[in-house]
């Protein structure tokens, strides 16, 4: 099809579809008036049943924990997929260059590595208490590692995050989530059922399996983000 024909087809059908979508959206409860029972029930019971203060984490890692198992594997599959697609042997001499020339940038950037990683670990660790969790905290943790490259040296960054360690962390992180599910089966429960002590609500030692799944997620997400960025960093092309 020519661009004009394509645009005409899209314009016509898009307007019809937009009208339909608006028609459907007007059937929703008015903004701010939602009364869904599912959310009400979970807000009421999650705290006492799962000893968490962050209900979203209880949903993510327990009530709908099986969704999260799938979600982790989506991220995992993407890492495998990108590694498969960018598998072409690279020229060893074409290593990514260290671009930072300014001492000030280097000093400030590198001094942020530690705090960023600590922040990430903090957000992971408190996932069932305050806003945060394995997904949210995995990103800053990975960002801290990537700062070593961005502000410093490629070699140092690779030494801090060797390939075998990342692969193992990624695989172990997602495998741990399935393993927790299977452990519940072995303990006589249903898949992903909580079979460990719930601890004291409001402390780090609380929420049972949620804490384990949350930590495993943090590990898997950190490794996944570093691995993804790593594949793309290696692809940097320099003009002749």
């Amino acid at each position, binding site marked *: 099809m020519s661009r004009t024909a394509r645009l005409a087809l899209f314009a016509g059908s898009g307007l019809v579809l937009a009208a339909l979508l608006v028609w459907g959206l007007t059937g929703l409860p008015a903004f701010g008036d939602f009364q869904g029972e599912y959310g009400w029930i979970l*807000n009421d019971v999650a705290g006492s049943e799962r000893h968490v203060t962050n209900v979203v984490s209880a949903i993510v890692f327990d009530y709908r924990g099986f969704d999260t198992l799938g979600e982790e594997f989506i991220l995992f599959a993407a890492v495998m997929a990108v590694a498969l697609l960018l598998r072409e042997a690279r020229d060893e001499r074409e290593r990514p260059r260290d671009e930072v020339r300014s001492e000030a940038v280097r000093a400030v950037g590198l001094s942020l590595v530690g705090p960023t990683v600590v922040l990430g670990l903090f957000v992971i660790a408190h996932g069932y208490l305050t806003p945060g969790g394995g997904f949210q905290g995995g990103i800053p943790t990975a960002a801290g590692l990537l700062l070593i490259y961005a502000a410093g040296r490629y070699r140092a960054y690779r030494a801090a995050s060797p390939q075998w360690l990342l692969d193992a962390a990624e695989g172990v992180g997602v495998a741990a989530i399935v393993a927790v599910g299977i452990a519940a089966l072995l303990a006589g429960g249903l898949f992903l059922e909580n079979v460990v002590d719930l601890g004291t609500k409001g402390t780090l030692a609380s929420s049972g399996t949620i804490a384990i799944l949350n930590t495993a997620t943090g590990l898997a997400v950190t490794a996944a983000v570093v691995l993804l960025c790593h594949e793309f960093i290696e692809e940097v092309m320099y003009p002749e």
Partner: protein
Amino acid sequence: MSFLPYALAAWLFFVGLYGIVTSRHFVHLVICLGVTQSSTYVLLLAIGYRTGKKAPIFTSGVPVKVGAVDPVVQALTLTDIVVGVTVAALLLALVIEIWKRAGTVDPDELRRNRT
């Protein structure tokens, strides 16, 4: 006024689609796909909002009875965001490879190469 967040979701959906249909550059196309996907974030979060209620985090001292917004849509949005990141990463990897083979990232240009 109360329809505005839903209208925003519809707008994002179609403006993203328009970008995809008319795109001349695959990286631009991947970003537009992200715009279309943001519409689903907005829609889900807007559905679960309850006027005057707080976030579903009940730290000590806050009585449960105050009530909170719907926590389920927030969990769904989290999943949705992960999906968005992964598809973007995958597509960009494909775009890098196609740039290496074909020397172009314009969908229309690729058609001319093909026949």
